[in-house]
């Protein structure tokens, strides 16, 4: 089971982000369970949403306390909420920010993670550029597809089309694709140098042992352009699932 926790603020589409992530996983033939933390959903208040992904039926209903991946939609939460609670050393962290982990004063978090498993993406800026609104949720899912490899970009694109239509869908898809490519670019710069290259100015160099471990998993699969990612009309899921499978990038 792969468990994702998304932190953000009311109004940033945190819950919708988790729901779209579950739809993307579903479209790739997996079982997925997305649910909100049911906090007071006021605009600006800290919000948490969860998504579990597995190859078999998911029965567990507890909140995700030891996530495999954490997506932070709002870096101002870093010193207000214990967003990294339960994070595993082999986990993934994706933060919506134009800064680096060191700039955010969380260099020690980056230091204990594998270098190819954490990334910063300016998702709000990317959303403003492509969508015209500061909504980072779908953008971060594109980046997450680039980082963690649990879901493909075409599946994210289909999930966006499931939730949105028209210009909003197209803007989100363009933004998610841009974020995907940006993360792949970051990882690509990391890989040829033996995985020990710092990820941004000030990022901590990774220990050699971790760099060796990182050769095994697949985040460096060849990047295939998502292409015309709209797999047909949005009426029937099984059809879309097949369409998505046929153009999977990995």
């Amino acid at each position: 089971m792969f468990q994702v926790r998304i932190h953000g603020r009311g109004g940033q589409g945190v819950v919708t982000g988790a729901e779209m992530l579950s739809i993307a996983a579903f479209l790739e033939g997996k079982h997925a369970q997305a649910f909100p933390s049911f906090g007071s959903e006021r605009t600006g208040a800290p919000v948490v949403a969860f998504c579990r992904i597995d190859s078999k039926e998911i029965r567990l209903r507890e909140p995700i306390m030891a996530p495999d991946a954490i997506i932070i939609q709002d870096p101002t939460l870093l010193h207000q909420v214990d967003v990294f609670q339960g994070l595993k050393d082999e986990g993934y962290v994706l933060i919506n920010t134009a800064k680096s982990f060191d700039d955010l004063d969380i260099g020690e978090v980056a230091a204990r993670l594998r270098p190819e498993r954490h990334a910063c993406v300016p998702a709000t800026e990317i959303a403003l550029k492509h969508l015209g609104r500061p909504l980072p949720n779908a953008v971060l899912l594109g980046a997450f597809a680039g980082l963690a490899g649990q879901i493909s970009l075409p599946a994210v694109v289909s999930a966006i089309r499931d939730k949105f239509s028209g210009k909003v869908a197209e803007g989100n898809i363009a933004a998610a694709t841009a974020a995907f490519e940006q993360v792949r670019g970051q990882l690509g710069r990391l890989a040829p140098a033996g995985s020990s290259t710092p990820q941004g100015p000030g990022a901590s160099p990774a220990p050699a042992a971790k760099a060796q471990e990182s050769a095994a998993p697949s985040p460096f699969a060849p990047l295939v352009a998502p292409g015309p990612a709209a797999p047909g009309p949005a009426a029937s899921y099984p059809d879309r699932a097949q369409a998505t499978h046929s153009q999977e990038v990995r």
Partner: protein
Amino acid sequence: MALKQIEGSHGVAEAVALCRPEVICAYPISPQTHIVEGLGEMVKAGDLNAEFINVESEFAAMSVAIGASAAGARTYTATASQGLLFMVEAVYNAAGLGLPIVMTVANRAIGAPINIWNDHSDSMSQRDCGWLQLFAETNQEALDLHIQAFKIAEELSLPVMVCMDGFILTHAYERLDVPDQERVDNFLPPFEPRQVLDPAAPLSIGAMVGPEAYTEVRYLAHLKQRRALDLIPRVAAEFKAMFGRESGGLIRPYRLEGARTAVVALGSVLGTIKDTVDELRDAGHPIGVLGITSFRPFPLEAARYALRDVERVIVVEKCFAIGVGGVVAIDVRLALDGTGQPVRTLVAGLGGRAITRDSLSRAFLRGMADQLEAMTFLDLDQALVERVLERERLVRRSGPAAEAILREVGAIAAKIV
């Protein structure tokens, strides 16, 4: 059939629509709202040919449901928490009149203190109102139970509540198998009412009954509920034959073979309990689970038989009777009358408190060692309670208890669990 990754509420809305209800009335209240919103959208778009009646309160919702059902219409409504309490007088009337209304209760705590999160206090408060109460373990079962509920209700001429955990199920996105219309039509024939208000054949429904016959009318209601004990499994078997999956029924045993301890529970917490029991079984502990799907009528004999070989029973309840103890545990004790098997109550998940595998596992281990008291509150912050009690001892005007506890807890936003 179509596999969809959708919210539980929308899955239930689709299931209800497939049952071709003729009248839908409801008043919005979290966490039920998305269900009737979904149905409202279908009616407005012309996809569902039903009368969607906006009412001014839950009391009106049930009153309209009573009128519609008495006029021979297949009738649906949904509510939760304070909404259910507000409609209580009409809820009892619907059962007493024998009207086959189906209602979703998106289980939520009741106030004060106000709390929008999940537990079973709302539907448990209506334990004795005469409605059947079926509890869904998953969103798939919630969807399936609604289709079965109309069939059961109309066969018995009794109303049925389908209880699903608020937020935990209603707001969860999961894979759902939504049946096709043709199969649902084959499974659920058009509504043939046993009693109907018809101007062509005038009659009265709801007569006053005095001491000369009231006992017999109530006894008949009891008899009909007990007859549901035969009908509910039969409908579940028909459902399985038509749709190919297990849903509904009276009880659902899980890994009870060889178990010396059984955990009894209702609703979505069964998933977490089963995962916990799997871990304990892997570690060599003989423990199993009995899920109760039909809480009303309570399957006394089926539960007694399923639990015949265990040495002790732990009932996990998202509700309790203040001043007494567990609610479900009372029925389990009745089912085990004379066997000497001890029954322990574990109160958990009140007002949305997360029920975790870790906490359940620790409690079950204590239970297996006969170290649980008759009633235990899972993850109770005893020190917090002591501080508030101490303050009440010291200060005469100690103020409202809920606010005092909140002050003691301090900032809550920073906690994930």
